[in-house]
């Protein structure tokens, strides 16, 4: 495990093609809203919101960014609208209740292990605590019958990743082509790229 993230495409930004044929109108509309209308807290209470932010900082740390990709606000917005994802696994309650219960359980895990709130723990302890849940070593007593690993992977982590990698900054950092309609791509072979794609991975240059 490394502590820092070393970007392979440091100067690439998919937003630079905004005015090109790679972006159709609806894509521009969707991204404009995502970038400019970051939702305000509505569903979670202040304590839950701070806890979730601390968790998101561990799930996708962005220490190098002055303007980190916002994640908590979009989770809260989905919960406000009562959005579901089509699957409720056995033992996991309805979406809103599942998040409330999961956050309470992580708070309880922190209290039981360290006698303090998760938010107050140092980053190393926060990460270790989340790894235990991810690895299936949560304390069932705190989870009130909800399968902890299942919640962590299938509800929490999945949603966090879906939000992070839907953001242009995250897509730029991995060299993804980004929006591509109506214009797609011409050069399909290995190490071949169109001028509107990320230049070659600097590690290969």
């Amino acid at each position, binding site marked *: 495990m490394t502590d820092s993230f070393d970007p392979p495409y440091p100067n690439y930004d998919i937003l630079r093609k905004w005015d090109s044929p790679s972006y159709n109108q609806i894509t521009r509309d969707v991204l404009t809203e995502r970038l400019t209308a970051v939702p305000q807290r509505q569903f979670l209470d202040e304590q839950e919101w701070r806890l979730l932010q601390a968790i998101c900082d561990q799930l996708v*740390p962005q220490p190098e960014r002055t303007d980190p990709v916002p994640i908590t606000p979009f989770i809260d917005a989905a919960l406000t609208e009562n959005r579901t994802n089509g699957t409720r696994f056995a033992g996991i309650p309805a979406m809103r209740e599942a998040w409330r219960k999961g956050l309470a359980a992580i708070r309880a895990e922190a209290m039981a292990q360290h006698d303090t709130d998760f938010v107050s723990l140092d980053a190393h302890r926060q990460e270790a605590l989340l790894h235990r849940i991810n690895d299936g070593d949560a304390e069932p007593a705190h989870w009130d019958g909800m399968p902890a690993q299942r919640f962590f992977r299938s509800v929490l982590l999945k949603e966090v990743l879906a939000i992070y990698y839907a953001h242009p900054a995250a897509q730029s950092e991995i060299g993804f082509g980004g929006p591509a309609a109506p214009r797609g791509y011409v050069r399909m072979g290995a190490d071949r790229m169109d001028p509107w794609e990320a230049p070659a991975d600097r590690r290969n240059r």
Partner: protein
Amino acid sequence: MPLVEHLSPRAIAGRAPDVFRHGGWVPMREYGDDEEVDFTIVGTGAGGGTLAAKLAEAGFSVVALDAGPFWRPLEDFASDERHQDKLYWLDERISEGNDPIELGGNNSGRSVGGSTVHYQMVALRFRPEWFRSRTTLGYGHDWPVDWRRMWECYAEVEDALKISGPLTYPWGPKRGRYPYREHELNASAEVLARGCEELGVDWSACPTATVSARRGLSPHCVYRGFCKIGCATNAKQSTLNTFIPRALAAGAEIRDLSMVTRVETGADGRATGVVYQRDGQVRRQRARHVVVAGYSIETPRLLLNSASPKHPDGLANSSGLVGRALMVHTNHAVWGRFQEEIRWYKGPPSLAVCEHWNYADDEKDFFGGYAYMSQGPLPTDFAKTLAESEGIFGTELRRRMADYNHMAGLKIVGETMPQERNRVELADETDRYGVPLARVTYSMCENDRQLADHSLEFMRNALSAAGGQELFQSGGTAHLMGGCRMGFSREDSVVDGDGRSWDVGNLWICDGSLFPTGGGVNPSMTIMALAVHIADRIKTLAGQDAL
């Protein structure tokens, strides 16, 4: 992205969206709810949409209802995974069993055009022997349809969708050439080809439902790679831009955002029509025949929710098989890093296929087969796979994701055995329409695991031989099949070989829930071929006055 409950129907006032034009409309014939139409069809995906076109073209009056919206791809589809969640069935379903299935975006569409709006366009035929799996291969059930008949239907569907495919296909009996030429391979597909060459098995350019040259109002595929979340150019040939426009032109009415909650039956036990909700109103459509085409979860759910004094255990369920023998495909994969940049986001995700293990009976010790294809997951899709299979998050996940452009993968569509314990039932809890939620139970059997293990070992060797490093593997499932299987008698099945209920003579099923076995290929072409077959049979029966 918009929530389905906030959308308003578009197919109203004598017109329906023109899928090929910004803001465009095409004229649509409309029927009154009290007008008894020949056929009302529940669902407009690979099964229902295809059937609607075929029946309307044969002169029947048709009203097809879909719970989902009627999209215009050119203006409605963004290059954005999160926004495009709007294509999926996101209402909650309860998923249980030893290996609970992920539903929603994994396998369930909710749009006019159904799951074909987001399918990966892999257009494969069943192996002929699979239609007699029990007799010739020793597992599962035989199908009540002959493979030669199905092959005629496949040919019709492949022409209707102008499948782009190779001049010769390495496996199975000789077939005619595909209507459009095959697509060029992307780097991801070349990896699959290289692995097969090294291991000495055949591979092929994948027959694909996106056009390699202009077709009418569909431009040639521009290899944008967002196929799985909706094609924004109309190059993809889905039910939405093929059979649905045909159905409308032939006089069918398509009602979008219409959730059917019950099939109604009369005192004699025959179907009289459906109850549905549209735009906040509860309505009824009368019909001489009702066709249920809601796929493997919604079809059994609707039938079970349509119980009546004559049908106490649910409609068409005297066999007790409604909802039973639900199948998926195992979707195991091996992923590896390549020194060169693959950039698998370009082109349709699965441009190359290996069906070797669907045909090589003598070299394996399990029932069923699998195909594997090259892969091209979009960023959030791949991030989830990485997190789930490697158990990582945090900086390590970001670092691994930084290799996104160097990755390639091989993933199976693996046949699972039909087991009656795998099923769809009604839960106690109800949804916003007042219909009980579906409870879906799924557990793999030993044979399913053996097949998956075999595939993982083979694909590891193939990916490694192609130059892949730092290999890792993932599990999961794709597709749904079964739940209302077709068969030979009222004891062994829900419907006969024409899709007609054994119990209710004017009730039909036309979707993937009919499958007695799953096969080792993506199901959409077989669902469409069944729809063609059922439409032809209905025409024949009508001609004999036997409807």
